[in-house]
């Protein structure tokens, strides 16, 4: 039985908009056997909280998040990430369990941009996805996260790190 979710002031769908059984993935069977690795409460707090993020003292504009929460299953998230990679002409270099690495096709300013994504579980149906740059130019990485990945992932994103913190 699914626990109903709701977010203050927003109407979000009750469950993951992408039905899990619509996802076809070779690793599906392997993933359903075990959930994503546990993301403990301290990890969750230190990654998601803007109050603990002192880099804000140094930045002039709001930092783009490289971490988001999702209500979807780990398998759905992984499949969606792989789709996003293909959409933006990124080759999935490897994908194992709940971690994948994608590499851009074209050479950027500092070589090909490579991005890793890892899925963790905070609680059943509460996942955290962390992006990090594996290779390439930082500005290109930020641009990819903000302009390409972010809109493409909106169906599975519950909340981005650092968002909603300007409301009092």
């Amino acid at each position, binding site marked *: 039985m699914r*626990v*109903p*979710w*709701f*977010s*203050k*002031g*927003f109407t979000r769908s009750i469950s993951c908009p992408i039905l899990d059984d619509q996802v076809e993935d070779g690793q599906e069977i392997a993933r359903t056997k075990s959930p994503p690795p*546990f993301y*403990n*409460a*301290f*990890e*969750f*707090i*230190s*990654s*998601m*909280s*803007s*109050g*603990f*993020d*002192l*880099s*804000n*003292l*140094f930045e002039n504009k*709001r930092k783009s998040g490289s971490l988001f*929460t999702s209500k979807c299953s780990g398998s759905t998230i992984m499949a969606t990430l792989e789709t996003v990679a293909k959409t933006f002409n990124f080759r999935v270099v490897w994908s194992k369990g709940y971690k994948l690495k994608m590499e851009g096709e074209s050479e950027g300013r500092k070589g090909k941009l490579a991005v890793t994504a890892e899925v963790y579980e*905070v*609680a*059943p149906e*509460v996942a955290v996805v962390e992006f990090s740059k594996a290779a390439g130019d930082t500005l290109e990485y930020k641009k990819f996260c903000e302009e390409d990945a972010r809109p493409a992932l909106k169906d599975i994103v*519950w*909340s981005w790190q650092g*968002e*909603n*913190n*300007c*409301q*009092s």
Partner: protein
Amino acid sequence: MGCFPSKTRKHTPGYEEPTVLASETSFTVSEVEALFQLFRKLSSSIIDDGLINKEELQLALFRNRNKKNLFADRIFDLFDVKRNGVIEFGEFVRSLSIFHPDAPVSDKIEFAFRLYDLRQTGFIERDELKEMVVALLHESDLILSEDYIELIVDKTYTDADAKGDGRIDREEWKEFVSKNPSLIKNMTLPYLKDITLAFPSFVLQSEVQDFEM
């Protein structure tokens, strides 16, 4: 050194000389001078008094002076070493030193422990952890059922409370961090290594300017 005799320079309480601070922290003298530029910017944002008050910290972290936040409160309380309700320059530099990439990891582990020990009992109690999870969800504008919050706290506690006595002590925390080093990633600010580029300080300029109250 300097163009003015030191007795004509008035500094706000808590100001310490860059040379002194550099000798006692992970920063070089020019890094401390650069931090002074940052400090001036932050401490004058609401009240131009050379001190960072709670609202000025909230403004700097959230771009919203009225944003109340448990985690920012903890940061403020730990930086305000003298507990006089304001962060002075010396306190600012000494506290930020712990976030320097070259600062000892043991200092970072200790600072993180004190951050999470909300009521400073010397232990991270279960209800403190729960309070923080609830605060985080509130900050992110998310609502989770009580059951799920309990689940998250329980599972974390099982991992961290090795002795099973219902609270996390310093020893257990150190052990937990050594198994999960990413737990203290927010305790390192790479920016601090390039601070002189972000806030160029001109030695003569900072010595010449009076910090007037």
